């Protein structure tokens, strides 16, 4: 019985540890996002464009984004432009994109 209680205590301690880790991770994330600045966040669905050329690039990128990335998962709701390159590079390897596809999608995500 004693062993069982000790085991239960270990189990509870692990759950608490995991929960607190999750909480800390979540808080750290929220802080990082706040620091990154809400105004600088990218929204994949609404890219900011400046010229007809970049409009076309963004359109090509949007098509490629929808055709490739959203095959497996939804687009992230919002992220900082400073990680756009990392995300697309990660997707290039995961989704076997060509260098041109990577370039176009990056233009769409961070024009």
């Amino acid at each position, binding site marked *: 019985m004693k062993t*069982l209680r000790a*085991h*239960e205590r*270990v*189990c509870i301690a*692990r*759950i608490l540890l*995991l*929960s607190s*880790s*999750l909480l800390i*991770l*979540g808080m*750290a*994330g929220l802080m*990082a*996002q706040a*620091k*990154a600045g809400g105004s600088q966040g990218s929204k994949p669905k609404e890219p900011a464009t400046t010229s007809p050329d970049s409009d076309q690039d963004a359109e090509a990128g949007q*098509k*490629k984004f*929808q*055709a*490739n990335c959203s*095959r*497996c*998962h*939804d687009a*992230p*709701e919002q*992220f*900082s*432009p*400073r*990680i*756009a*390159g*990392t*995300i697309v*590079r*990660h997707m*290039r*390897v*995961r989704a*076997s*994109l*060509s*260098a*041109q*596809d990577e370039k176009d999608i*990056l233009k769409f995500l*961070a024009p």
Partner: protein
Amino acid sequence: MHSFIHHAKHLNSSRLFYLTSLLLLCFAKAAVAQNTPTISGGVGFLNSTNAGANFFQPVVSPVVVAPLGKDFLAESRFYFEEFVGRKNGTSGPYEGTFIKDTQYLQLDYLASSHLTVVGGRYLTPFGTYNERLAPIWIQKFQDAPLISAIGTRTTGSSDGGMIRGVLLSRPNAQVNYVGYFSASSSVSQFQAARAMGDRIEVYFPNKRIEIGTSYARFLQGTHNNSFGAHFWWLPPSSPLQVRSEYAHSEHAQGYWIETTYRLSQWRGPESFVGRIEPLFRMQQTFRNSPSPGDGLPAADTQQADFGLQYHLPHEVRVNTSYSRKFSSPNGTNGNANIWDMSITYRFLFPMWRGKE
């Protein structure tokens, strides 16, 4: 060398996670504006009742990605779970088991526009589920398909080398390939089987149809082959998604078909109704000959999964599903009801502020 192996055997995932993050931080310090390393992944609380046995699983699965210069990328995914269930299945006190796993820890070299060379520990590229649909922030159903063990033995991860890329990329057609070789490893957190295999897939972006085939040869113990085929259809003008896979191994074979339809055409994806996504999956496995170690049901099995997914704001999802399983030669034993419920949060953050 012996000492290194001895130490490696005792490394656990949490230490590896911290160590990897630290190493990536050091190497990726010169990251430029858009290439700040990221930490992403999912956090979830899963509950399942399978044939009367109740389980709780708090899970966290972080992904660390760091570009290293122009041509290299380091990436890793870890999995931590506390599996809490009753001692005797359906009775007795609840007790927990901590599960940790290094799912991938790889270095990618972007050799050319059409070729990426991967070294390290990577997800075994057989079919579509293991590589593309398994993460908790992507999966529609909590339980993996019954055939998911075919071609991905023994752990779903491989240690060795892989080449992958796009052979042909045109606006109306795309051909992707993967080839790999894995060494056998019994090192804790890096367990893998000696195996080799490949996958070829053709994708039509305009129709959003994907067709592919997979092959794996298991090269330890009794050598044997596994074959797979998949078909995906995600019509561009509709939120309907159809995914299916068939896999065949020496002792068993089976398939699954999954359809999902998010009700986003009802006042948009952000509306109350538009956030609802009904799910359905049908799966069957057929046993050709007994093989206790292949990870598939011991008898022919049919299973229908009915699910409902609700997409809350801020990357939070609630999933519920009910499955009815029929699995026995005489139709009485092995039949079961499976109830699943989970809540998951997907996160994606820069690891530090980075340069503007």
